């Protein structure tokens, strides 16, 4: 009986294919990035080894890199302190209403669309001439507020962040709703009988109960704030100036638009390191470790 579960050949056959795919498509490229990051290669032609110069330049002489990081932090903060509370409140409301299914279905629809449609649609909505947003603003009589949302430096970042929040909202809502639904009604009833008002009920009973879900959502939010790329690539490409630049997009255009492949690779490596550190830190801080529990 034990033999089945320790059969070497079976273990190898079961894991090696998946491992090979991961090694080929994920691990190998990272190693290659480390190598290319030490060069000033253009992606073609001559390959010159420059040691750690790229990394030094990124850290000391590249304001765009730091600006991109800052934008990711802003996005993470907006996600955590605006999107998540709204999602939580709505999820809580949905657990109380009868016809929640239709609402949940509608709220999740943006999340299943392709990023190309979502981004280009919102670019159209934000268009200063024919876009939906300015038309609504005009109709409401606030014409002085109709601006070029994506090209105006003071509104560009917030517009882009709004797209990302709109796109990801369904996921946050779903996580919180699922978490809230695992809580049996008796717990709530008992708290109410003990005299808890709504605020106490939520802060002392509900939120602690679904804290694991909140932790999971926070980790996902932090990491995905860092990883944003397609929305930028398909809308502003970082413009105006660096206002809407994010790291993943920056490294992409450095390599494919400016032919600074070596430099772009160095950014990639730093990006992976930052992502790894963030993952470990947020998992450590929130004391969750689904990777090791077996």
């Amino acid at each position: 009986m034990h033999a089945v579960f320790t059969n070497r050949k079976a273990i190898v056959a079961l894991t090696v294919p998946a491992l090979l795919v991961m090694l080929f498509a994920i691990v190998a490229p990272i190693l290659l990035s480390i190598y290319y990051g030490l060069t000033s290669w253009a992606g073609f032609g001559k390959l010159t080894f420059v040691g750690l110069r790229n990394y030094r330049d990124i850290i000391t002489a590249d304001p765009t890199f730091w600006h991109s990081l800052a934008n990711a932090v802003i996005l993470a903060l907006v996600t955590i302190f605006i999107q998540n509370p709204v999602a939580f409140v709505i999820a809580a409301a949905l657990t109380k209403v009868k016809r929640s299914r239709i609402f949940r279905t509608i709220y999740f629809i943006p999340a299943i669309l392709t990023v190309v449609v979502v981004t280009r649609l919102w670019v159209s909505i934000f268009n200063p001439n024919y876009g939906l947003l300015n038309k609504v603003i005009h109709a409401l009589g606030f014409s002085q507020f109709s601006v070029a949302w994506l090209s105006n430096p003071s509104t560009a970042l917030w517009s882009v962040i709004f797209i990302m929040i709109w796109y990801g909202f369904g996921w946050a809502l779903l996580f919180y709703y699922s978490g809230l639904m695992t809580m049996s009604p008796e717990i709530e009833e008992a708290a109410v009988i003990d005299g808890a008002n709504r605020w106490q009920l939520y802060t002392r009973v509900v939120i602690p109960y679904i804290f694991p879900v909140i932790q999971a959502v926070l980790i996902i939010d932090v990491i995905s704030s860092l990883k944003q790329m397609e929305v930028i690539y398909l809308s502003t490409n970082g413009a105006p100036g660096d206002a809407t630049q994010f790291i993943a997009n920056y490294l992409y255009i450095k390599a494919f638009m400016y032919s600074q492949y070596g430099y772009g690779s160095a950014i990639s490596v730093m990006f992976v390191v930052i992502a790894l550190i963030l993952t470990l830190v947020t998992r450590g801080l929130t004391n969750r470790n689904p990777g090791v529990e077996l």
Partner: protein
Amino acid sequence: MLIYSFLIVFALLQIFPLIWLFDFSLVKSGQLFGPEILKIPDPPQWGNFVRAWTDGNIPRYFLNSVIVVGGSVLGATFLSFCAAYATTRMIWKLRVVVYNIFLLGMVVPIQTTLLPNFIWFRLFGLYDTRIGLIIPYIAFNLAFNTLMFTGMMRSIPRSVEESAYLDGANMTMLLGRIVAPMVAPAIATVSIMTFLNGWNEFIMANTFLASESLRTLPFAVIRFEGQYSSDYAIQFACMALVAIPPILLYFVFSRWIMAGVTAGAVKS
């Protein structure tokens, strides 16, 4: 009552962009510049959709998406099923290490592999091929899928497998006839999530494919903007066409999608 109005307002916020999209995809292009927020298409310009379909090369892009995404669903589901079983049920020294290697896939950002894979895949003749897109799609779905299967497998008592073995089953029969049916919900969830990820994926398809004949569906929208840069109604029609398959799939399979997300957050 107040709750309902709040929920309805919010629902509108989520869905109104799509309504606007479908509405103006049915009008004559120039009418987008009018002041109306919504316009009743009179008459509805179905021709926009026809032109988006043919000029936007949608059938070919659709077919490519089906091939690439279908391949990655099959591959990712099968490979992660096997890997999850080995790291959950089998007893061996490196079990935890390998499990964590698989989970690493969730940490690595896709964009950091774009640059090197662009060169690396070329070496193997995988650039500008469908299989060259299927492989990374599988790779990046392995982490989540393995997590899903692991969660489900851990909740199944070993006794069923053990008695099957006593009855003479070998590993293949054990996995195929006993374990797989028991984790059928996870198989469904994993397949659908992998499908959605691949169907909506853009940047890898954009980087690893060059030929028009191989591009996937999200690209139809991009192509259209170059070609018909001033015909907004047709662009809208194209976006609407690309948006419809996931929406349909969602309405049919919403339960599995919700289950997948739930399991991901709540179970672990």
